């Protein structure tokens, strides 16, 4: 078991950069290379299976990074497929937005309709088209695979790795973990910052003592770990994860006492018992465990705990603009007492999120001055070192 005050490091620790040329990383030239060599080659999570429960269920996912919109659908054969959300007639966006369930989806422009398996189902006044081959005009597919309820796509013509290879050792470690929860909140906003700064803001705990001193003053660390060292950090080939330390001396504030009295402990408290969770959660079985942070390179950060999990997407729009989407799932409430605890925790966590989100635009603006070339990274920020190493590896086509 890992000691709370000393970090146990595991994995690919060589060649991790303690200084990173951030001016280069934020440049439009670098961004263009990242789109081609990272975002067009990586496996990217885009949707939850939970949003596609039936035949005909669909979800629209805009992906500005590769300038497309996806239509993810579940067909009669039960298979979930992603297609480019573009009508094969004259290129209109087929489904504007959102989610729903229909036997076919119909373009609002000229009424062309497509089946959930992508086939062109109906063309009004079809006889007016000469030499028309309906079979050749189905929706343009995108390689799609599902892992533990997360739908992934890959924009490469021929993906270089299977999803199992891409995910590596985590592939078999999370059986059932993401089942059985309900989505409680979903926030989305556009930010004037580069996607690297977004991901970086959520993949270290060093900031928590300072940035969150007003919102969650004693939620991590405690007397035996005052500097809140992560008990465990693991660097895999592309992804990384670490565990955050619960504060065993956390004192519940007055309303918090009642928030969790008739339900389960949630942020700013933690139920640290991971004994019934699959091996990928609290992988080192650290004492005083709060939650894990996993970066699925390049742009998806998961926070996994007992009773809740959070998924955060960072969709680059350009070198200085990113869309961020945060979805929080909690255990399904069965009583008012449980629902009230969820409400208390949801808002506390939202306020922490707002503090995290508030650093990125200010940092971007300051770095755009060009006066400072390098950022310096500590051992507790190893995830950032690893993030930039993996970025460089993919840019060099390693």
């Amino acid at each position: 078991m890992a000691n709370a005050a000393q970090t146990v490091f595991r994995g690919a620790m060589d060649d991790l950069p303690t200084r990173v040329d951030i001016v280069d990383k934020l440049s439009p030239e670098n961004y263009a290379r990242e789109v081609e060599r990272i975002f067009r080659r990586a496996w990217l999570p885009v949707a939850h299976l939970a949003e596609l429960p039936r035949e005909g269920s669909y979800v629209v996912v805009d992906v500005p990074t590769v300038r497309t919109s996806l239509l993810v659908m579940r067909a009669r054969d039960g298979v979930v497929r992603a297609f480019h959300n573009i009508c094969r007639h004259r290129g209109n966006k087929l489904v504007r937005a959102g989610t729903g369930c229909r036997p076919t989806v119909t373009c609002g422009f000229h009424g062309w309709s497509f089946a959930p398996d992508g086939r062109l189902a109906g063309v009004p006044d079809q006889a007016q088209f000469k030499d028309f081959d309906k079979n050749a005009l189905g929706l343009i597919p995108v390689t799609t695979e599902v892992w533990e309820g997360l739908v992934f796509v890959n924009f490469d013509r021929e993906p270089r790795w299977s999803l199992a290879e891409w995910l590596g050792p985590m592939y078999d470690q999370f059986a059932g973990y993401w089942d059985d929860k309900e989505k409680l909140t979903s926030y989305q906003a556009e930010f004037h910052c580069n996607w690297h700064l977004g991901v970086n803001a959520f993949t270290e705990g060093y900031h928590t003592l300072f940035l969150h001193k007003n919102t969650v003053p004693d939620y991590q660390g405690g007397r035996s770990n005052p500097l809140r060292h992560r008990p465990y950090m693991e660097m895999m080939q592309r992804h990384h994860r670490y565990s955050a330390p619960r504060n065993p001396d956390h004192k519940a504030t007055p309303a918090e006492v009642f928030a969790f009295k008739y339900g389960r402990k949630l942020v700013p408290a933690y139920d640290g018992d991971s004994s019934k969770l699959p091996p990928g959660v609290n992988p080192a079985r650290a004492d005083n465990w709060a939650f894990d942070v996993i970066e699925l390179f390049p742009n998806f950060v998961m926070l996994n705990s007992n009773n809740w999990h959070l998924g955060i997407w960072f969709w680059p729009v350009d070198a200085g603009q990113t869309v961020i989407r945060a979805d929080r799932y909690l255990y399904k409430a069965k009583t008012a007492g449980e629902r009230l605890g969820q409400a208390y925790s949801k808002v506390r966590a939202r306020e922490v999120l707002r503090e995290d989100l508030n650093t990125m635009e200010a940092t971007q603006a300051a770095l755009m001055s060009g006066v400072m070339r390098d950022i310096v990274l500590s051992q507790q920020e190893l995830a950032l070192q690893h993030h930039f190493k993996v970025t460089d590896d993919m840019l060099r086509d390693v």
Partner: protein
Amino acid sequence: MTARMLPPQFSELQPFVADWALPDERARYEKLAASDIPTLRVFYDAMMKRIDEIIVFLDTFPLDAMPPDAATLFDLALTFMETAHPIDLNWSITDIEDKFPAERFNFLPPSAPAGGARQTS
């Protein structure tokens, strides 16, 4: 418009219903941001006196099938839980400065799909 009524045993909280029995996160956040600490404290103190009994009472009903007066009490209690933190944490203002402005958030309903970048409808 008929006023939403609370169960009779919580009648001293009836004056708070119009302003504080709010239906969703966005409405509760906006109420919090528009209130000052003294106003919030009046609501907080009144609710803290009864919150234990309130939860015990509400737990006797199925979550999806509460009678109207219990549902009103539930909205009041949910708003309490979503606005208690400034008093719990001894803040001097109800929304700490230097945080990302929540007005720029798109508070999507829980049924909104995962992942997608620009949901313009």
